[in-house]
């Protein structure tokens, strides 16, 4: 409780920013890349004879051109050392390093969720996603996470599928239970 209050309020996110230029460069390069792909794929859009003066290619070319120009501009800015200011927020700690492991776990659990929706039904997939995400983010103890996950999944299934008629598949476990099916 005490240690973080005594931190100097002036300390901003500049510490973390110095480690980032490479990733930023890749991202800016990707914007250029999308623009280039936009040009190449844009040139293959068929123009039907019915098209007027301005066919289906014009706007894609404009957008691709903007992307290439801005992307190059960003790369130049970055090479000169002007890095972006990472977003701030109430729950963001500006003084910690990026926790790639947690990000990876969240992505992984969302991927598992996607794979589970059809075979096991939405409530099971949702409970797994919540449980996995809460565990990844450091919630303890595990059994409380599990209880909340199951209860939340069932409530959502009941309210949205049962009451509001959103077609979330209940899965074979709950298929026979009327309140979970719209």
């Amino acid at each position, binding site marked *: *409780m005490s240690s*973080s*209050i005594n*931190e*100097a*309020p*002036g*300390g*901003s996110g500049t510490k*973390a920013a110095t480690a*980032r230029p490479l*990733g930023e460069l890749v*991202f800016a390069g990707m*914007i250029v890349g*999308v*623009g280039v792909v936009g040009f190449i*794929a*844009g040139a293959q*859009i068929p*123009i039907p004879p*019915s098209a*007027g*003066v*301005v066919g*289906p290619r014009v*706007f*894609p070319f404009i*957008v691709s051109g*903007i*992307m290439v120009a*801005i992307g190059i*501009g*960003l790369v130049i800015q970055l090479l000169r050392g002007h*890095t*972006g*200011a*990472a*977003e*701030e*927020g*109430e729950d963001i700690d*500006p003084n910690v390093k*990026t*926790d790639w492991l947690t*990000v990876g776990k969240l*992505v992984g659990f*969302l991927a598992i*969720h*996607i794979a589970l929706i*059809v075979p096991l039904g939405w409530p099971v*997939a*949702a409970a797994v*996603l*919540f449980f996995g*995400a809460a565990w990844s*983010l450091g*919630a303890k103890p595990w059994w409380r996470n599990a209880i909340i996950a199951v209860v939340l999944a069932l409530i959502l299934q009941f309210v*949205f599928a049962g009451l509001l008629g*959103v077609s*979330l598949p209940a899965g074979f476990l709950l298929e026979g239970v009327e309140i979970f099916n719209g």
Partner: protein
Amino acid sequence: MDNFMALLEGFSVAMQPMYLLYALGGVLVGTAVGVLPGIGPAMTVALLMPITYSLDPTAAIIVFAGIYYGGMYGGSTTSILLNTPGESASIVTALEGNKMAKAGRGAAALATAAIGSFIAGTVATVLLSFVAPYVAEFAVQIGPTEYVALMIVAFLTVGALLGASVLRGLASLALGLFIALIGVDALTAQQRYTFGNPFLADGIDVVLVAVALFAVGEALYVASRLRHGPVKVIPVAGRWTNWMRKEDWKRSWKPWLRGTFIGFPVGTIPAGGADVATFLSYASERKLAKGERKKQFGKGAIEGVAGPESANNAAAAGVLVPLLTLGIPTTATAAMMLVAFQRYNIQPGPLLFEVEGALVWALIASLYVGNLMLLVLNLPLVGIWVKILQIPRPYLYSGIMVFAAMGAFSVNFTPVDVFVLLVIGVLGFFMRRYGYPIAPMVVGLILGPIFEDQLRRSLAISQGDPTALVSTPIAATIYAVLIVIFALSFWLKKRQKAMESEVADETPVATVELKEGGK
């Protein structure tokens, strides 16, 4: 007088018990998501869209209007009561309320914010009721060329002015425009950027992209640098009925009104939305304060809460003017509202007041009702909002992930959409990390197809001559105004930076005092 009658009719719809309940639900959800960090009204509207299909259009629009206004109220509670050292210094306007709370004056800060929001919201809604029909009348007369001009103004102001970096804002805008291109061209029925993939041929759903960017991107980003430990909320003492002293009323009422009349016009012109309005209000209150009160700025001056909070709400109402009359959203939330309208086959624009008059006036009437509800809800119920604010962050962000996955799946009921959610969510993560603003991308995504349509129409009229785009008198005026807006906002940004460093220099003194008194 016609409009007044129409408004009364709108009230007769909005006051029906069923719609009152929907409005109540909307403002409750709106306040809750406004209070919670990591969720905003834009994301909530996006999330609720697929799962409110069963509602009739009026009910859905009333719910979304409630969320829109509720989000504005809830945000102030967070910035006043959440104790996040070091961070809020970057947002000058959030500073005063937080400092007041640390000095034990949190109740007064909350009260002046809520009452100011109510007054500003109500006055601005009155202005909206009377200004919007006239703007619509004017808008009927403008053609595609002028539309192109107006949308370019919206693109450039949202893209270049909102964030800290002009290029990153424009890059975000271009990404949005690009994703909007994927699918079948509406005019010639040719596939664009689908790479032979039948899934891409349908285009990528706007709701999917918005939920991915706002919800999944935010959850991943927060997870990468999560502030661990308990959430520290500054306690509020006393009964809410005597939160405001006589002195506080005396010091607040002028900033409330000034904030309203700064916020509304700034909201109506696409010049950066609420941020600009709050800053302008804060700067003018600081300038107008005298003697002892001036010294309080940066340490918890009530004027610095009352003014900006009012300006914020008035701007939110102002944003509805271009949205309803021209179909041009100037903030991310307004963009999501536009999508909500489109889902029900309602096209905001010059004809909206004629074609969907009953619905628009019911919407406006529900804004009055919602505002009153928000005032009543916010003061006595602050304890509940504080509880919501204290939800453990792992559960909060896990819940956001689950809701996002549900919203994505509900778009077409296929897991492929949830996969797209994941991919674009990762994109949103990197955008936040590297300082790319999200709002321009959403605006580009939603306005892109409309813009292309109008652009091609105006070029078809001029037979491909691009100079026609700037040669009509109205269009030329719009571009001239654009240049003025840009000049003004760069000047404003400089002022804001200067003031931020000035205020930041003064703050350490204040925080030292607080450490003794705060706990």
